[in-house]
């Protein structure tokens, strides 16, 4: 029975341990901390894989554990592990705050895992708030005035959105009288389309866009990505987006997506795609560029979600997983380049001559960026193919065409970085060595990017199976 709650338990124990560490007078060495976190990250990963096929519900079935939630927990654990690896390598966090950084990381991961399983409105909202606060603090944990400004904006924007979401929630709960999502969505008020219910649900799902950084709530992303420390940004970019997708899938899959809703989402997806891709063309700071690219990716995921069909949801699940892999690979390269460049905002010019300095990293950069652009045989392409095929089944042919044209535009700025990596001569030609731990992770990621792109069969069926199980009757 206890295994059902294994991943969350491990994270809680980890946070308790970290709390004790903060109390110690003589600060532990950074080396010890990173090894400890690496170990706990691996344990967490093992825990998640172990509890992958468990199903059941806890806390008087406000907390549902099924293949769907465990799948996303594994994704979050993966993102957590990679962030820890990156943090060990290069972070701009002052030494005395490193333990707190790991603490907030852990609580953030805990919050996201709970979002995956929470099927009760209150526990869902509290989980969202937990992960949100941890991310605000993670974004703030870095020396420098720019990051203060961006984290304040991040917090206030987030707080206002959660206020609006709460208001929507109150209407929804008030109308249906119960807090379990299944009952809410199956209640007579929902089916008869009461205006209060519609506006409540709309406000709540709009607020979810905040975490997904889709239009109109994507303004925080470029500033936070640019100014927060790179490992924190990698965590925000991968884990929190995946968690947002989980909740969206839970919500949309059950509600069956009325036509008007998918139309509205379509418009939002259209704008966020265009906005993300075209703005990225002008960026020189790679982290800010990746922020705009994540806004565009949010647009693609919304295209998958708005079909509301089982196919749409499973492809969104698969694409979220692919997105986490691609972005982690990109951030891994970015971290190492930032480390060699010596400052946390590597410009495109810092990627010059990467192929000469470290061919392995250049290859990984090539694979991750091309996968983000949706070039076969990588996972990004397969993900996009099935994502848009489910949308096309519902007849959104214009949106699909627009999305594909957008990915062509996106190729321009991805290829510019690749071009810098392969063509221009580097200023400092010191070889860029990749530590063993990161090299193993990198090989794993590259293998995943390529193999899952060429042999996606197993993973697509896993996604379909998970989404089918994830549907709360």
């Amino acid at each position, binding site marked *: 029975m206890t295994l059902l709650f294994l991943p969350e338990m491990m994270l809680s124990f980890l946070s308790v341990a970290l709390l004790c560490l903060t109390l110690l007078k003589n600060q532990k060495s950074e080396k010890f901390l990173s090894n400890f976190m690496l170990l706990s990250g691996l344990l967490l990963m093992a825990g998640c894989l172990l509890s992958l096929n468990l199903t059941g519900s806890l806390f008087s079935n406000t907390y549902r554990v099924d293949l769907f939630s465990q799948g996303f927990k594994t994704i979050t654990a993966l993102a957590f592990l990679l962030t820890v690896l990156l943090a060990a390598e290069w972070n701009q966090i002052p030494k005395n705050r490193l333990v707190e950084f790991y603490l907030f990381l852990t609580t953030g991961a805990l919050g996201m895992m709970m979002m995956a399983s929470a099927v009760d409105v209150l526990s869902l909202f509290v989980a969202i708030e937990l992960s949100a606060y941890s991310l605000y603090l993670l974004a703030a944990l870095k020396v420098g005035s720019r990051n203060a400004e961006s984290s304040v904006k991040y917090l206030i924007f987030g707080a206002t959105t959660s206020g609006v979401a709460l208001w929507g929630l109150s209407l929804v709960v008030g109308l249906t009288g119960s807090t379990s999502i299944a009952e809410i969505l199956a209640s007579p008020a929902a089916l008869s389309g009461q205006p209060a219910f519609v506006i409540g649900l709309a406000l709540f799902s709009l607020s979810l866009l905040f975490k997904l950084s889709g239009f109109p709530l994507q*303004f925080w992303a470029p500033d936070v990505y640019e100014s927060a420390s790179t490992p924190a940004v990698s965590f925000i970019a991968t884990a929190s987006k995946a968690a947002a997708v989980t909740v969206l899938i839970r919500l949309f899959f059950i509600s069956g997506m009325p036509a008007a809703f998918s139309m509205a989402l379509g418009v939002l997806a259209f704008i966020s795609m265009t906005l*993300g891709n075209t703005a990225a063309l002008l960026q020189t700071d790679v982290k800010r560029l990746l922020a705009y690219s994540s806004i565009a990716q949010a647009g693609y995921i919304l295209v998958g979600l708005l079909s509301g069909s089982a196919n749409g949801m499973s492809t969104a699940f698969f694409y979220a997983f692919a997105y986490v892999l691609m972005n982690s690979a990109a951030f891994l390269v970015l971290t190492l380049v930032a480390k060699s460049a010596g400052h946390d905002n590597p410009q495109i010019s810092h990627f010059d001559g990467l192929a000469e300095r470290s061919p392995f990293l250049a290859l990984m950069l090539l694979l991750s960026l091309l996968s983000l652009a949706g070039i076969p045989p990588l996972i990004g392409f397969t993900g996009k193919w099935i994502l848009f095929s489910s949308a096309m089944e519902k007849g959104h042919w214009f949106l699909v065409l627009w999305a594909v044209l957008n990915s062509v535009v996106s190729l321009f700025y991805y290829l510019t970085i690749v071009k810098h990596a392969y063509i221009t001569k580097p200023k400092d030609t010191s070889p860029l060595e990749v530590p063993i731990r990161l090299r193993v992770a990198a090989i794993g990621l590259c293998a995943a990017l390529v193999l899952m792109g060429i042999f996606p069969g197993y993973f697509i069926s896993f996604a379909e199976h998970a989404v089918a199980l994830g549907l709360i009757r």
Partner: protein
Amino acid sequence: MNDLNLLWIIQLAPLVAFLLIQLLPKNAKRTAPLIAMGAALLAALSSLALFYAHRDGNNMPQQYIYQWLKVSDKSLWPFVTIDHYVLNIGFLVDKLNLLMITVVTVIAFFVHLFSYYYMAEDKSRARYFGFLSFFAFSMTGLVLSTNLLQTFLFWELVGLTSYLLIGFWYEKQSASTAARKAFVINRLADLGFYLGIVVLFILTGTLNFTDLNHEFLRQMLPASTLTIIGILIFMGVMGKSAQFPFHVWLPDAMEGPTPVSALIHSATMVAAGVFLLARAFGLFSSSEITLLFILIIGTLTALVGASLATIQRDIKKILAYSTVSQLGLMVMAIGAGSAAAGMFHLTTHAFFKSLLFLTSGAFIHHFHSNDIWEIGQRGGKRDKVAVAALCLGLFSLCGIFPFAGFFSKDLILEVLREHNLFFYIAAILVSFLTVYYSFRMLFVILFSKEKKDMHAHETALAHPHHSSTGAIELCRVIPLASLAIISVVMGFLGTGWLDSRLLLWLGGEETHVNSELLITTLILIVSGALLAYIFFKNPETAETRLTQSRGPIKTILERKFFIDDVYEFLTKKVGMGIAGAFAWFDRKIAKELMVNGTAYRILDLGKISSKIQDGLLQDYLSWAVGVGILVAFWLVKSNSGIF
């Protein structure tokens, strides 16, 4: 040796020679001429053997056909109910082909011999002989072809070899330009031929010569289409046989080595057009308008050629223009309806014109100059053999009694007289001009006084190789002599004395000596010779007179009736104008507008979206709230319709 083996030998011998020469290693290049000559000899002998085997004209025509390409498509032939047609390649043996193949191979062999002498000290000799044998191969293919498509195939290959041979000395800029001009103009004419074949193929579904008789065609297609097809295919003939609008390339083709001009640009290739006229006579005769058109074009060519020849200084140019006018005559003969007369004149002309070219080659080689005045001044008359051959050739060209030219030209005049008086008069004028320019050439070379200084420097240079080896000397004399003999004998074949076997052979009827015609030709020759004598009795004064006099006729003749300028205008202004417009379009519209245009539009879009991200939190919030309200409003409106 049955026919098929002989045919294969004739066809493949030159090709094998060409391939062998290409594959020869560097040091063995010296043996190239021998290989080429051996192949030419083999081809000549086997074609003579073939001719001998079929001399009495029995069991002809025979066809040996090999499938090349199968076109199976019901929707292609609207008028004909066949669903597939096999394009094939093969050999057709009939009287016309046999005659032509013997003429081609014999002359080719003699030219090979002469080239051994002429190209003795040229270092890329191997390439020359390679191209020569390749020409022989493609010419045989053209002559023996069974259908129009095969003719077209080898037609283009012949055009290619003429391009390669004209531009043989490619270092010379003028040679390569002339070669390009020849090929492009041939190509222009071949477009018509190509279109004609395609249209014929689509409308009648067959291209075999055996099917192209006018009854079959007349009941198959209306007269108008037949005329169009006829004229289109005749365009091909005009290109190859240098007829009126497309004759400009032949004089420039003289840039090539003289044996090439002898073989290709006088006897064989240019005659291919006339041969095609005779070969596909059924098609052309199926509509009167085509024949008339052919007649008119023939006349124009003859007149233009003859008139331009009168003012040339370069010996090869004179012969080139004379070829143009003689070809015009042949085309007139066929246009007037008798293919036999045309073919007879073709055969005789082939021999004496190649003889003339070879002699001019001898002169040029010996005296290192093309200009007849310089040849004369350098003691042209002392080279006895060449002068004899020259006189013999010129006399038959003018049609003086015992020589071949007389019989064939008179036959044409006879045919024209019966057909239409106007063209008969034009033919008379042409033959008068022919006599005038041939005697002009003769007198200039014979009567000009030798200049001492020019002469001394010449002999020092000319002599050393002259007596070097007997073989080379032989190769110079044998072709000249034998061609001279043949061109005399050939004439008699057409006459009554040897029961005009040749004419019967060609299907023409008995020739009867037409006394009235004899007199007119006699008057004509005498007056032409006299006029030339008056003008060119003393070449030096004639030369000065020529250079000063400035008459309108002289300028027109000098500017070659402004045809070259018309071509110049067409290619430079019209052609390049359109190309320039397209290139500008390509640069401007296609590049700027389509490519960079869209790119800049996308970048503007990018600027807008990055402008929204202006750093002010409250702007972001207003965006969020604004869009939130819009979406909520729209959702509520569409779902529950309360608004």
